[in-house]
């Protein structure tokens, strides 16, 4: 009997080439980093169960789940608003994986595992806003999309979740992007096209930071 290996393969594994891309005569204005492994669970409140879900979320994560377009983080989890009565739980290492969260929430909420449905890309750099302006119709100026702001929106007519992380120590903006896995290669090409003129530093990380 054959031996089977079950190596997960990220949606960007084929297309992502680590290193420099685009303009080389400038210091890279954009860093693109794929995060390959994560748990991502969509939690949708059931009818009339908003209050119970909120309490359970607070108990489970030590913070309130966002009820407006925001992302909130604790040391081991990020909760990202994804629509009315729903949010995404982004975590690593199985601590907030589907089976565990199901037990905690199934009385008030419907859960759907999205861990394999998305690719997670972090966009940072001095030119991050300029590059994202080519992809996104949102106003990402810090005054209208500050740290912690989140959006369910579209890029290339494809649904994405976008939220702004804390700035890097040198002041560079950081944006996180969840894109649908089957669209990931296509959107990646679009992103490289948008970023090429600024110089790109491409990398990936096996785990969430």
């Amino acid at each position: 009997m054959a031996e089977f290996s079950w190596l997960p393969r990220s949606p960007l594994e084929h297309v992502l080439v680590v290193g420099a891309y685009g303009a080389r005569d400038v210091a890279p204005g954009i860093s693109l980093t794929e995060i390959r492994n994560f748990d991502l669970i969509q939690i949708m409140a059931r009818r009339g169960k908003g209050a119970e879900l909120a309490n359970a979320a607070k108990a489970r994560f030590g913070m309130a789940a966002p009820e407006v377009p925001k992302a909130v983080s604790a040391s081991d989890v990020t909760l990202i608003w994804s629509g009315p009565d729903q949010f995404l739980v982004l975590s690593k290492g199985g601590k907030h994986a589907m089976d565990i969260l199901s037990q905690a929430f199934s009385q008030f909420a419907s859960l759907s595992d999205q861990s394999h449905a998305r690719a997670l890309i972090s966009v940072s750099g001095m030119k991050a806003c300029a590059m994202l302006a080519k992809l996104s119709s949102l106003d990402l100026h810090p005054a209208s999309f500050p740290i912690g702001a989140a959006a369910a929106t579209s890029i290339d007519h494809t649904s994405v979740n976008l939220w702004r992380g804390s700035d890097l120590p040198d002041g560079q903006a950081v944006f996180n992007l969840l894109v649908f896995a089957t669209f990931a290669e296509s959107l990646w090409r679009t992103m490289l096209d948008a970023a090429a003129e600024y110089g790109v530093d491409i990398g990936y990380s096996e785990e969430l930071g």
Partner: protein
Amino acid sequence: MVSHAQTHRLASGGLIDRSAPLNFRFDGKTFAGFQGDTLASALIANGVKLVGRSFKYHRPRGILTSGSEEPNALVELRTGARREPNTKATTAELYDGLEAASQNRWPSLRHDLMAVNQLFSPIFVAGFYYKTFMWPAKFWEAIYEPAIRRAAGLGRAAGVADPDHYDKAWAHCDVLIAGSGPAGLAAALASGRSGARVILCEEDFALGGRLLADGGTIDGMPAAEWISRTLAELASLPNVRIMNRTTLFGVYDGGTYGAIERVNDHLPSPPEHQVRQRLWRIVAKRSIVAAGAIERPIVFAGNDTPGVMMASAMRTYVERYAVTPAKRIALFINNEDGWRTVETALGAGLQIAAVVDARPDVSAAHRALAAKAGFPVLNGFVSGVDGGKDGVRKISVALVGGARAEVEADGLGVSGGWNPAVGLTSYHRGRPKWQDDISAFVPDSAPPGMVAAGAANGAFGLGACLRQGFAAGVAAAQTAGHGVPPVADDEAFSLTPLWHVAGKGKAFVDYQHDVTASDIELAQREGFESVEHLKRYTTLGMATDQGKTSNVAGLAIMAAVSGKSIPETGTTIYRPPYVPVAIGAFAGHHRDENFHATRLTPSHHWAAEQGAVFVDTGLWKRAQWYPRAGEKDWLESVTREVKAVRGGVGFCDVSTLGKIDVHGPDAGAFLDRVYINTFSSLAVGKARYGLMLREDGMVYDDGTTSRLAEDHYFLTTTTAKAGPVMQHLEFCRQVLFPELDVQLTSVSDQWAQFSIAGPKTRDLLGEIVEPVADLSNEGFPFMGAREVPLRGGIMARLFRISFSGEMAFEISVPARYGDALVRNLMLAGKQFGVTPYGTEALGVMRIEKGHVAGPELNGATTAADLGLGKMMSTKKDFIGRVMAGREALVAPDRQVVVGIKPTDKTRRLRSGAHIIPKAEIPGPDHDQGYVTSVCFSPTLDQWIGLALVERGRERIGEIVHAHDPLRGENYDVELCNPVFYDPDGGRQRG
């Protein structure tokens, strides 16, 4: 190569960089210019007057203006794949090595054989095409159209793909300003200082607008100094963004604006990784149109002779570019502003031959100036121009009182007044209003949030421009802290309206489309009096310049001949774009393989390694078949794949199906309302085929839905309808049935799903599934659905469903394991000859099995038409139930799905053929349906198909015509049971 001397360049002055000489070529000749020139100014510097031939009459044309309103000086810029026709020489920035060619001439600009059109000009009048090529009709395609196409049109497109990249971007601001003249800069200062986010767009590469040519004193300093101080202050404000080389071309709903940025048009080609142009969508809370005004020509005979130029353009060329369009200049004006050109010309050491001023009351100061400089001031009108392709030689003047005069000059500056640029303010169907003191249309209303300021608002004095611009900036910023406004004097402006000097000879209104004053008169005589009719009948204002120099004059002439006032005559509707925008800029990144976003299945790269041929299915790339060495065509590969499945085992990636988690206590009740059949009664661990209707009773979509838990269904849709079904279900949930406690989530991308089919399916699965999972017919019966562990530690979902009619399972694993799964299936299945199959084999097997798919679910078929009428529950309400019962939808003579087989077993079938009764002559009168799907069935060793045929199910066994007029085929087919293969279904249940 030796450059020609710049014979017409002034020794000093201008905003050009004399330390940066540039060489360029026009019509193969080499010339020199400087950094800061446009192609037009550089041509003038070299004494070039003849720049192109006109559209219809091939008349020699020169340079009329110095901006984007230019109707004459259109050239082909660049060569090869980058060749771009109809580029305005007046806005094309000079770069070293620029190559341009004149247009619309053959064999050369100076000797254009098509100029014979001028001799036939009486027949090229308004409505010429409508009148001349009416008959005989058959001549149109064969003779008229090709001939017209050869002769018509300006310039040639490159004919090959554009090698450059374009992109699109969004920008957001509080205040958007169009134009960087005095009003625009003052507005930017006011709003920028208060902290508002400001974007200022300037179409030119240099900032300052008319100040660059007309100067003036602002805040006690020369305009040039004020501009540089202002720009320095604006540059220090991080909330202000100045975008030069950017034209605001459109205004859309909700404060959205379109702008085109010519990022690298001023270079021979864009630097690596940079774009040529960028299309901006700018979202602004407020906007200020400070786009200035356009000086308008006066219509008189010979007004298109090279050397006739707008008076303000002459100033621009002299002051900004330090070039002399003429040495001895005559002016024909009807307003005060034209006198500025006199001062500019004299200041540059040029001669003034005469000023022909249509106004009776020329000021004493002007008369004194004329006396001092020694030129006459003639009260009258220019009635003709003596000249040709080498320029103006002499002008004829009709003096008020009847006398005539002639003036020798090599250039004629014309000013008929100024038209505020009302395009942007009028794009929401706004109609500008007439303002008598300047005899021009000015903005009346504007789109929400927009105001006009300065010359664009009819304020022509420098002081007024600054005041209006600043006030608009203050108002738009809506916050304090804007400082003090800049101050300047207001010049006097007086004008006597003058549009057209009647006389012999062609007097052009629309230069680019060769529309003359007599064309407008003819249109009026023939009843095309409404301005919208006038425009379309004469093509006035329909060229790429959109009539910027011609529309108002055209209206004025129409008003005069129809005995109405100009405001009564009115304007045509203004529509974007303000300047032509390349299609490439609208496409941006979305061309070639990036035309639209694409989706890849989890096994895509494995399939590519196998050499699979892919097909575009909506956004997806799907493996169509997997060719093997030695196979001569697709049919051979597909046939092998089908046989391998029917005889052994194969698998196919079906991850493209839409997959939706339906959660909640009311999930079953919800599905009962959206499917025609019942799902609330489905047992946990079971799957069921479901059919959805539209509310009008037609079939919408189908798929298999499984109950994974009491409150959790896993619904699948067809590949094509995945998105629409999700939207439809959300509509049902949120709008139609809000009382139900149900939640929906797309999990299409979460699961990699494969169909494994064939008699050896269990053998293959046995290798890969942990033995604890009982896959026997008893342990996992047909339509079972449950989770099973796979060897090596991951969980999978198994669904015992079959599209192929074979013993089959669908297996799904979390998508990141899809690639591993397919490799493991190959590894485990080697001993069974496992064969991957593509969408073609999938299609063949579904036709053999009589399963309906896209061609039958065509939006016009009912459940009964598809043979699925019995699924329709009578015990519940569901979407489409009532309408499905309408008389016509249950009529006995509907076209329903049947199988077809050619009577000649060797015959190939083709879909689209029509079904005609055997006794009838093929034709539309006897059309009883058509062939929807066909395939070569390896199992039956012949072509088979499905068709929609009137009363088809009652006619099994009947021989009918398959009539295919498109391909010229006519043959007999037998109507038969659509289930060709294993009609009892024993194989899939076994």
